[in-house]
């Protein structure tokens, strides 16, 4: 099984260059990629409204999450194959030096908030209360979990984008 996954990973992600991948697959324009990225959003939104109005259970809520994950993986795959080697290097560097440390910083921040609630803890608590009120009767612990998760992902993403921008700036800006 592991062997199969390795072969699949090598065949699909690592070995083939962007040029080879584009020769095999139809080239996607930036707009087409954005359209693919945005396509499931109205569906997911519509489904969540329907679930709430019809009063369906937890299984119905899980469905869009599974759809979102599958779509996310597919989109990442399509985007990766579309990139040339410079673009891929920038992303690898940003994951290593941006998203990775971002996750560690965010996780440390969560622990600090848990043990030393003032003053950040108060802000998180208020955000969780606001989110709970917005979702109408969501338990405070669940709302707190969602707000915490959003913060961790947010910090991770911010650092990823920052490092990605620095990588490109170092190669595009300055005297030529």
């Amino acid at each position, binding site marked *: 099984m592991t062997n199969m996954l390795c072969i699949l990973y090598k065949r699909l992600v690592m070995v083939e260059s*962007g*040029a080879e991948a584009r020769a095999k697959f139809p080239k996607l324009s930036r707009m087409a990629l954005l359209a693919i990225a945005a396509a499931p959003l109205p569906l997911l939104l519509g489904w969540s409204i329907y679930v709430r109005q019809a009063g369906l259970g937890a299984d119905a809520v899980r469905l869009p999450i599974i759809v979102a994950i599958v779509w996310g993986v597919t989109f990442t795959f399509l985007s990766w194959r579309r990139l040339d*080697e*410079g673009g891929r290097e920038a992303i690898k560097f940003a994951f290593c030096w941006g998203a990775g440390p971002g996750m560690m910083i965010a996780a440390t921040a969560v622990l600090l908030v848990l043990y030393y609630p003032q003053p950040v803890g108060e802000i998180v608590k208020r955000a969780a209360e606001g989110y709970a009120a917005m979702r109408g009767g969501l338990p405070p612990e669940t709302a707190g979990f969602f707000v915490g998760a959003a913060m961790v992902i947010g910090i991770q993403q911010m650092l990823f984008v920052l490092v990605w921008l620095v990588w490109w700036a*170092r*190669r*595009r800006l300055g*005297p030529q």
Partner: protein
Amino acid sequence: MIAEATDMKNRIRVLRAEKNWTQAELAKRLDVSRNTMNAIENNRYDPSLSLAFRIAKLFRLKMEDVFQDED
């Protein structure tokens, strides 16, 4: 200083000028983005071995005629 410098120098700008190609045109011929092409041309990004070979092949030159070590 923000700009990154690589250990390798190349003659791509000169070779491209000889062919009268724009940077975008060269990027298209090599199937890379113009951003990547610009970074390579300005010695701010070392291309992979396979891309370096493709560049040399495109100009019908040997690799060492396009890329030189800094030392």
